[in-house]
């Protein structure tokens, strides 16, 4: 049977290892080199606004974008939906909007406090969307699944991409350390901004159509956002 070293022994070894690490003292020349490199460009800067202000900015864009799109888009799908369907989709979009706006705010500020991992937020929202589409909408396929589906996916991409660009413009000041996470969070917020408007104008309110052409496109877009963020570094 394999022995396991007790915790105190691991702790002792780690402390000894930490103590053996090179000291951090810096030479006066190195300090001067750093100071001389920075001083010519030392100008006053305005700190980023408080986290609450940044959150409000993202959430207002999300709300205004969603409401604006609903106002200008065809509402044929809205008349087909029951109050429970409208309420559930609105609720999940609002929850996703709040969580993602909070996450983006934390991601754009180095050293900010993070209350939830992005992967947890996306998993929760994904499960929510799946549960709503799968339980509140009928499981049937009417007409041509592909011919009726791809225009919805195209519409989602056409709206979500510019929305993500607008959100990026707001985030860019703090996005010096642009990462896959920030990019995925921005794309996810843009995607959720589109979900409700797309739903209100879609004529094919069946679970397979919604899961494949609406939710599936969203997953692909968020993945692409993450990849672009990772390569943009």
């Amino acid at each position, binding site marked *: 049977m*394999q*022995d*396991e*070293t*007790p*915790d105190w*022994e*691991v702790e002792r*070894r*780690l*402390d*000894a*290892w*930490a103590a*053996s*690490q*090179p*000291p*951090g*003292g*810096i030479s006066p020349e*190195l*300090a001067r*080199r*750093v*100071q001389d*490199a*920075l*001083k010519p*460009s*030392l*100008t*006053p*800067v*305005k*700190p*980023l606004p*408080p*986290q609450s202000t940044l959150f409000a900015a993202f959430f207002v864009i999300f709300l205004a974008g969603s409401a604006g799109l609903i106002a200008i888009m065809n509402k044929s799908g809205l008349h087909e939906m029951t109050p429970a369907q409208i309420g559930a989709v609105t609720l999940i979009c609002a929850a996703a909007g709040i969580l993602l706006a909070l996450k983006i705010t*934390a*991601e*754009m*500020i*180095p*050293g*900010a*406090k*993070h*209350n*939830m*991992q992005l992967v947890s937020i996306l998993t929760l929202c994904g499960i929510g969307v799946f549960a709503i589409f799968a339980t509140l909408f009928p499981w049937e396929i009417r007409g041509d699944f592909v011919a009726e589906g791809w225009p919805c996916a195209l519409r989602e991409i056409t709206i979500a991409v510019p929305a993500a660009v607008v959100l990026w413009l707001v985030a860019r*000041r*703090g996005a*010096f*350390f642009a*990462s896959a*996470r920030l990019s995925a969070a921005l794309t996810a917020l843009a995607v959720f901004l589109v979900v409700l408007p797309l739903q209100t104008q879609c004529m094919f309110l069946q679970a397979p159509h919604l899961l494949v052409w609406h939710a599936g496109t969203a997953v692909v877009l968020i993945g692409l956002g993450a990849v672009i963020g990772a390569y943009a*570094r």
Partner: protein
Amino acid sequence: MGDGQADDLELRKLMTRYQRADPSALDELVRAVSPPLLRYFSSSRFDRNEAEDLLQNCWLRIHRSRDTYRASEPVMPWMYAVARHTRLDAYRKRRRLAAREVLVGAVPEVLQADNPDVHADNFESMISGLPDAQREVLIMLKVSGMSLEEIARATASTVGAVKQKARRAYATLRQVLGKDSGNAR
């Protein structure tokens, strides 16, 4: 870190003055913050010269992103967050160069408890063999003396996720040390 809240308040004042373009605040910050940052880089698989280059690069990034610091937040997690990005970019650059240079074979990155090549007499190699995220947590915890909350902020993570990484690192080290002492008997 570990020098307490008084130091953090002092650093916050310096950062605020630095944002207002006070050159003496920059001098004081460089003197106060560089030693722990250099130690962090030196502990992260970089030799002294590379660590000094990284420190200079890190200060350029700190300078360019100084507007993202807010006086209501602790200074060191912000500094370490910038340092962490500097270190990660240096790793990526090093990997790209290594990928171009090494055509055949690969260096194993992840420490496995059943890897017979890893021995307890070289604890440094055990630490080096841990996955990067776990090693980073150990460096911040043990070498930099940061709290879990500070590490979570610096690594853009949650306290729970940091705890989990530390637990996994400890579990792997326990196993490898245990296996090694078992083999020695």
